[in-house]
């Protein structure tokens, strides 16, 4: 597979020219060219998608993916169902990796510093410069990288070893405290394995495991298995202890709004209660004596009874405690992690829900302190050259760290990167490298699980990039290292050949193994498992107490964004425009404050305030949020870039500028919980870019819930949405409709019209289980990716013009920050309901909205004239309008467009189509293959992507279909069905709560 030849061939891709075209018009005066392949790639049939397995490179979780390509372009990323981490699902950031691949701000050629700017140079010049300057630096060189795949990591380590230099593997969201805590508690240097699906009671001390913590997609799935109500009406409980209710917390059944930093003492106090009840705490028994529920309660600002009750329940159930997360990381981060592990151990969870038996051989990611040592070395003039790859310290470090100044004293700075960032802007040489979807690589997300990443397409021709491995191989050779391989591809294969041999040649010859590994995307290796250890005494002194904070005023919580991560996603319009699952704001930053605090301070939603810490200040609008303590404010990480591309620059603020940049005592991770801030009104106000109108459903039957006891008693028929019918003799009687949305119910009474041919046609329908939905919004981005849904930008969003086909509605039913208690946040993915009796259809003057014979609510873009009457008349408000030509995106972002979906022009209404292109594709395929289309064969993008498996789609007229079966559930309801007789095709299953809920007549 020589790269050179094939790359050129790939470029001559059929039909690429048509990619960006839309509804602009039919006739053209230009001669359109038809470019044949010179040599056709054997795995590509024009018009048929080719799938490659790969690994997502957006965070360190390592989700296995399948990448859909058409005519040589990657157009969609989906979870690899064979992969144990992703399980077929993917998060929003994973979907958006395509926008990293096609990002118009990727660098198009190597650049060298020239005065204040850069000048383009050739790769040859760049490489000789690199070899000369870095080679000349000898051991006065440092390599700052992110957490890379094992093979690349090995190559990088080899380079620094040859040079006698130092490599820092830096991740802003550091797992180091957890790893160290596991070592302290169990003597194992591992990240423990959390089996959420085995637990009946999950207690999270602020770990945002549905968003950013370790492996959100995997935990999303296993959380659902534990927490969603099952066929026997059993449901696991989830308690969240944190000063701020994150998205993960919003999925909890109970919220304990404790004082920031008091997680450790509460965990220890819980363990204390268990020990008093007879549990064995091993070497920690003495330590626990000091942490009584009473003292912890005082420390945490919560009633002691809460701790005691929770501890008792924790001891009784199959329980699991997780955390604390990054947002709670303060000076006691390692101690807090240790406390939670001790709690698990005391409750006897080790070996069942918490597993530490597998040694993880991958080196730990370095911490903030390690990086600061490099910064110090730079500052002292101790470094001649420094190379950055996959790390952006200029953005991620608090300004107090003095990174920019220190970097100035380094002779030669190199950034190996895909696009300009704050660090690269300070460097002398910038080398553009491939995106992970164009490059070879591997991943080792956890012991025994490997994935090989293959290029899914030829490099995007707009950018003269090189594989990152090749760049470092060249460097290695320049440094005199003896490397056997000409390219990283060969290097990777060589390493794997060694590994294959070392493992005893599983799967036959190496070639067979390799091909199979690329095909399936998963390599599993049996790791030697050790017995689950018992607690051991910590080998160093630890402080569990609440850390003291600098400054005075409100405690500042800086949390990682579920959309932008640590800031890496900031230049992707899909992620910027994805409304934050918690606040429903997008594009800009905000400060979350308790509504009562906001009122006390005389502020309003959207008022600009100056948040001032002893170390800096930022100006952000206020977003009142009941899920944050009254003495706490919270700002999300990830925004506020200055030099990261057109979609990121100047959007929001970087809360890092408020932090002192102090390191934690034990492992030296960055203290996120470190300061108190002053909130000063500026007198300014800004309109927030949000999709949220009201977070109160005003007792309307939109997202109802049922208490689990009521569910077990059975929801009465009267509550199950009967249709009423006028009787001949007067009066109304319910129409006999046995199950909500059961197949035999179609056509529903009152909808006898509007069915073309009821016998033969399918009736496409969907069921969404709101007890499973976590509101993570992965479906929103998956849908954007599949359906060419455009991003509109901050200004348009501020006007209320988002184009998302899925609107993740979120209603606060019960959120109380003043005391521990039940929390009830209702998520509702609102999509086109494909009503049988659709109000949007008859009002369209030109039949652009109509009902298809298979029950879809068709929207024919090219017929639409844009009266917007259909959107006015849609009770669910899911129709969105192209106010401008939003589909005009800069090259090569348009390469992502799905060629099977029309790109919409301005002035056209659009909405969820139930992925009709997938239905038609499957139907075409089935017909050509001469078979009947299976009832569950069509999987829309949202269902495919949902980590919680909350969405089921299919032909509800077929009683065997999953959607028909799921819709038989007694929790099923249809929004506003009997109120306005719309006969929707989307069946929602009510959320199940532990606390009593106000019953709403649906």
């Amino acid at each position, binding site marked *: 597979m020589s790269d050179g030849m094939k790359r050129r061939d790939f470029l001559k891709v059929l039909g690429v020219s048509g990619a960006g075209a839309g509804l602009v018009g039919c006739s053209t005066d230009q001669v359109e060219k038809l470019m044949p392949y010179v040599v056709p790639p054997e795995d590509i049939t024009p018009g048929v998608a080719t799938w490659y397995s790969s690994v997502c490179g957006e965070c360190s979780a390592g989700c296995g993916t399948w990448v859909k390509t058409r005519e040589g372009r990657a157009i969609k990323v989906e979870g690899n169902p064979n992969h144990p981490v992703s399980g077929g699902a993917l998060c929003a950031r994973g979907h958006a990796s395509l926008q990293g691949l096609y990002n118009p701000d990727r660098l198009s050629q190597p650049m060298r510093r020239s005065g204040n700017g850069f000048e383009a140079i050739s790769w040859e010049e760049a490489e000789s410069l690199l070899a000369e300057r870095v080679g000349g630096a000898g051991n006065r060189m440092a390599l700052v990288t992110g957490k890379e795949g094992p093979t690349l990591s090995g190559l990088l380590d080899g380079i620094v070893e040859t040079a006698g230099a130092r490599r820092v593997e830096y991740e802003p969201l550091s797992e180091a405290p957890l790893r160290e805590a596991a070592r302290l508690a169990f003597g194992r240097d591992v990240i423990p394995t959390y089996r959420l699906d085995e637990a009946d009671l999950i207690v999270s001390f602020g770990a945002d495991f549905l968003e950013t913590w370790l492996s959100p997609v995997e935990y999303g799935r296993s959380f659902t298995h534990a927490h969603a109500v099952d066929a026997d009406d059993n449901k696991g409980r989830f308690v969240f202890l944190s000063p701020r209710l994150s998205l993960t917390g919003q999925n909890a059944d109970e919220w304990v709004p404790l004082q920031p930093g008091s997680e450790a003492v509460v965990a220890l106090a819980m363990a204390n209660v268990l020990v008093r009840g007879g549990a064995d705490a091993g070497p920690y028994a003495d330590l626990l004596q000091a942490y009584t529920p009473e003292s912890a309660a005082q420390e945490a600002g919560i009633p002691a009874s809460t701790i005691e009750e929770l501890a008792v329940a924790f001891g009784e159930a199959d329980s699991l405690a997780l955390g604390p997360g990054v947002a709670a990381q303060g000076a006691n981060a390692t101690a807090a992690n240790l406390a939670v592990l001790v709690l698990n151990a005391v409750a006897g969870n080790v070996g069942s829900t918490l597993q530490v038996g597998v040694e993880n051989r991958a080196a730990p990611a370095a911490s903030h302190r390690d990086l600061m040592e490099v910064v110090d070395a730079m500052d002292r003039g101790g470094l001649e050259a420094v190379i950055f790859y996959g790390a952006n310290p200029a953005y991620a470090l608090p300004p107090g760290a003095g990174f920019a100044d220190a970097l100035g004293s380094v002779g030669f700075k190199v950034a190996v990167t895909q696009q300009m960032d704050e660090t690269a802007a300070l460097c002398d040489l910038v080398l553009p490298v491939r995106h992970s979807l164009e490059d070879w690589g591997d991943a080792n997300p956890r012991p025994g699980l490997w994935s090989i990443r293959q290029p899914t397409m030829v490099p995007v021709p707009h950018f003269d990039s090189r594989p990152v491995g090749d760049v470092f191989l060249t460097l290695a050779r320049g440094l005199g290292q003896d490397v056997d391989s000409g390219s990283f591809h060969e290097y990777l294969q060589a390493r794997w050949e060694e590994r294959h041999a070392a493992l005893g040649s599983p799967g036959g010859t190496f070639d067979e193994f390799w091909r199979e590994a690329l095909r399936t995307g998963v390599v599993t290796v049996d790791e030697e498992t050790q017995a689950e250890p018992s607690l051991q005494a910590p080998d160093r002194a630890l402080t569990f107490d609440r850390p003291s904070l600098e400054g005075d005023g409100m405690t500042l919580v800086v949390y990682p964004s579920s959309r932008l991560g640590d800031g890496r996603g900031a230049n992707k319009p899909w992620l910027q425009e994805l409304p934050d699952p918690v606040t429903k704001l997008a594009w800009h930053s905000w400060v979350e404050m308790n509504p009562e605090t906001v009122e006390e301070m005389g502020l309003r939603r959207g008022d600009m305030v100056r948040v001032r810490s002893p170390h800096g200040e930022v100006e952000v609008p206020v977003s009142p949020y009941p899920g944050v303590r009254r003495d706490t404010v919270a700002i999300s990480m990830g925004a506020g870039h200055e030099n990261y591309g057109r979609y990121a620059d100047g959007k929001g603020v970087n809360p890092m500028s408020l932090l002192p940049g102090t390191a934690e005592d034990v492992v030296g991770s960055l203290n996120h919980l470190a300061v108190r801030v002053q909130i000063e009104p500026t007198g300014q106000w800004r309109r927030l870019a949000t999709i949220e109108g009201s977070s109160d459903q005003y007792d309307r039957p939109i997202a109802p819930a049922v208490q689990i006891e009521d569910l077990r008693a059975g929801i009465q028929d009267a509550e199950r949405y009967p249709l009423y019918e006028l009787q001949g003799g007067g009066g109304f009687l319910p129409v006999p409709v046995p199950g909500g949305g059961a197949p035999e119910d179609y056509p529903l009474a*009152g*909808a006898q*019209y*509007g*069915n*073309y041919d009821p016998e033969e046609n399918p009736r496409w329908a969907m069921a969404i289980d709101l007890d499973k939905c976590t509101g993570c919004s992965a479906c929103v981005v998956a849908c954007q990716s599949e359906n060419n849904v455009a991003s509109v930008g901050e200004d348009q969003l501020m006007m209320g013009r988002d184009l998302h086909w899925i609107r993740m509605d979120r209603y606060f039913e019960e959120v109380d920050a003043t005391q521990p208690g039940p929390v009830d946040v209702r998520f509702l993915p609102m999509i086109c309901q494909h009503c*049988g*009796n*659709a*109000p*949007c*259809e*008859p*009002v*369209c003057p030109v*039949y652009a*909205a*109509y*009902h298809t014979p298979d029950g879809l609510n068709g929207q024919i873009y090219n017929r639409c004239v844009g009266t917007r009457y259909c959107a006015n008349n849609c009770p669910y408000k899911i129709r969105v309008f192209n106010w401008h030509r939003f589909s005009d995106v800069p090259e090569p972002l348009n390469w992502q467009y799905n060629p099977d979906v029309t790109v919409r022009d301005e002035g056209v209404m659009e909405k969820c189509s139930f992925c009709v292109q997938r239905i038609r594709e499957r139907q075409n395929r089935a017909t050509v293959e001469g078979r009947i289309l299976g009832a569950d064969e069509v999987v829309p993008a949202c269902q495919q992507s949902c980590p919680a498996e909350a969405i089921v789609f299919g032909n509800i007229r077929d009683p065997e279909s999953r959607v028909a079966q799921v819709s038989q559930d007694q929790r099923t309801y249809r929004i506003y069905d009997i109120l306005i007789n719309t*006969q929707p095709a989307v069946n929602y299953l009510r959320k199940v709560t532990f606390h009593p809920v106000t019953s709403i007549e649906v």
Partner: protein
Amino acid sequence: MSAATGTAREGLLASYEYLDSTVDTITELREKGFEEITAFAPFPEHHIEHALGYHHSPVRLFTLVGGLTGAAAGFAFTVFTSMDWPLVTGGKPIVAIPAYVIPAFEMTILFGALATVIGVLYNMRIPDLKGDVVYDPDFSSGKFGIYVTAPPEQMGTVRSILETHEPTQIQTDPKGRSHG
């Protein structure tokens, strides 16, 4: 209204200031057997119409047929187009007659009005842009007028009748055309 004998006719146009003079003149002319009378007035004056013996106008037939055509066409058209390519909207029947009442109603009015206008123009014999008929511009301002045609031998009688009622002016029209 024609009692004409022979082809050669002459005409006389008399202008009057007073309505009663005009009406009396017409009455007298008709009593004397002169039926080829055209009266002019600055506004619709029913005394004159009575004197000339008008009853119904055929314009109403135009209105009726136009309106019925519109109604039929309205229903036919809406029903035909919705059956031409049956598309269901909002669970309504393909041919949703109640909804089509409205376009059909509007077409009833439209066709009725158009037919009425065509009918009235036809019946009024306008547009008629021939400028050479005898006419007194004061008719549109405030004067009444009577134009009578008769065979030349009876012109004397006519003139004397016209002059009895104190016309402000009498014009002679040797060609004796009808005013339509």
